[in-house]
């Protein structure tokens, strides 16, 4: 399916990018103003001796290159450091939070891709109609909404005003569940508003890309052939058109992943969803750098891997680019 040389090149690129991200992350948090030892010893007075001892314990007396070596070794062992505000290892906190973010983003992504592509196809199929032009305008309008503000608006309209959905957290505080199903339905009611928020803001680009890609495909000769064969309109559009129009959508989904990570930070903040995004917000407010550093690294690696996946998927779906 893939050529060995292609995979080798992609693998080398991936390794280089990951290395660059890790190094960037290391350097960025070493130029921080302030002395980490002073931060730990915030309250009490420390003698010069004690300071030096702490410095040696954390390896801060070694040259930067040696510290970098320590850093890489810890990363490979899954050690992301220790959070000062939570007084727990960062990796433990991340393990809890990542699942919640994955649930939220999974739900939102399914909704966005299905609805976005669907609306885009319908708009393109009726190009020039009222439905088409209003779908473009609506897509641009929703694209212009700040994600966090859309969340606040939904909290106000559907939560505070109509009391239709819970507005905060992932489960009802203090709830006792009679069954697993019970617990999941509680989570499901909590996920509604954050998911709708993400969907509203991020759906526009899928609508626009699907629409313009399908409009292009529908002018191709093979569409004319399909029509001439007497295929139904539905078959022409879905079987011959959409299949080919989806390629640019896959390229765009790589960009979407970068965007939705930002969306998660905003939405989780507004709805107190206990995921990585809320963790970032809290870490920013408390200046918990070990957490901030690890979250950035994980977000970056996730997006890099997603980009690679979309590249590979493109190769599978479009035989024409396989040679390149």
């Amino acid at each position: 399916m893939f050529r060995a040389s292609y995979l080798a090149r992609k693998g080398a690129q991936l390794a280089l990018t990951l290395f660059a991200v890790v190094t960037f992350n290391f350097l960025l948090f070493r130029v921080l103003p302030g002395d980490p030892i002073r931060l730990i010893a915030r309250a009490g007075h420390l003698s010069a001796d004690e300071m030096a001892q702490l410095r040696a314990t954390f390896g801060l007396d070694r040259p930067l290159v040696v510290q970098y070596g320590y850093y890489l070794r810890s990363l490979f062992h899954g050690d992301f450091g220790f959070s000062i505000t939570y007084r727990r290892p960062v990796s433990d906190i991340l393990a809890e939070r990542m699942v919640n973010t994955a649930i939220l983003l999974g739900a939102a992504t399914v909704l966005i891709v299905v609805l976005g592509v669907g609306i885009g196809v319908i708009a393109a199929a009726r190009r020039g109609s009222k439905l088409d032009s209003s779908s473009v305008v609506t897509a641009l309008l929703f694209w212009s909404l700040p994600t966090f503000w859309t969340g606040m608006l939904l909290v106000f309209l559907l939560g505070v005003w109509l009391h239709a959905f819970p507005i905060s957290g992932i489960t009802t505080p203090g709830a006792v569940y009679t069954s697993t199903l019970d617990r999941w339905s509680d989570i499901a009611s909590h996920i509604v508003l954050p998911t709708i928020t993400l969907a509203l803001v991020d759906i526009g680009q899928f609508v626009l890309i699907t629409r313009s890609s399908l409009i292009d495909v529908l002018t191709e000769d093979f569409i004319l052939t399909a029509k001439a064969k007497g295929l139904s309109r539905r078959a022409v559009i879905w079987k011959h058109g959409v299949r080919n129009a989806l390629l640019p959508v896959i390229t765009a989904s790589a960009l979407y992943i970068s965007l939705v990570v930002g969306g998660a930070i905003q939405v989780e903040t507004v709805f107190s969803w206990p995921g990585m995004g809320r963790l970032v917000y809290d870490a920013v407010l408390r200046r918990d750098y070990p957490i901030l550093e690890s979250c950035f690294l994980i977000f970056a690696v996730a997006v890099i891997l997603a980009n690679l996946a979309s590249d590979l998927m493109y190769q599978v779906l479009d035989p024409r680019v396989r040679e390149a």
Partner: protein
Amino acid sequence: MASVGVPLGERPGAWASIRRTWSEVWSDALGRTGVILLVFIAIIAVFGPMFFPFNSADVGKSAQDIFRPPSAQHWLGTDELGRDVFREVLAGAGISLLVGLLATAISILVGAAIGLIAGYRVGWLDSVLMRVTDFFLVIPTLPLVIVLAAVFGQSLGIIILVIGLTGWPGTARIVRSQVLSLRERQFVVRVRSFGASDLRIVGLHILPNVLPLIFANTVLVIAGSILSEATLAFLGLGDPVHVSWGTMLHFAFVSGATGRGAWWYFLPPGIGIVIVVLGFTLAGHTLDRILNPRLRGR
């Protein structure tokens, strides 16, 4: 493009083509809406604070003065400190626009420079520059901006720099691909055969032909920069001295304005952001359709 190859300043049709572009934008329903929205916001940002100056120290005198709904005295009510929301919104417009415009200026300068060099100097320099561009393209922007702002501090200058220096990769890609196609065109090949220097070719012959594209891209990037600023400020990384719409929404959020139903506090700044971002998006979308050779005729 009949006059391709003649420098912009000497091109007889430079003004004519600007006028033509303007009339095309104005005759497009979406483009016209965008321009009207932007003019509206510009008037608010420039004249608002002149007639209704905002003083952030002008807080309420008692607990009765906070979170007051709109009244004759406070047209948009008061915030959690008893300050006038209407005046605060007017003052915030300028800060949001300022950050958006300056950050975009940085993004476009960096992006256009890298795109021009990479597109013109095919070879190792191009590969290196494009690797760097791709690196910044795949790194998720918001986490990057958050981390940089959290590390380097919360002044307006830092925020402008951070947003500007992370927003250029898209522009670099667009400019490079356009330059790549231009440098093989006949008029460039011809000037080069006359012995024109690279600087002269790029400055006088290639740049004028990418400028329209850069312009359309600029308008779209402004929308993104303003959204970035609002998001950063909302997350508590804004400049506490210069209150933008994003900063207002941060304080509305942490003071629980949504839970209290204080709609007059969180609706106006949000609507302001939507209007200005929508204005730039609609105008940029229309310009892109007119000026981008790849999209023309769609």
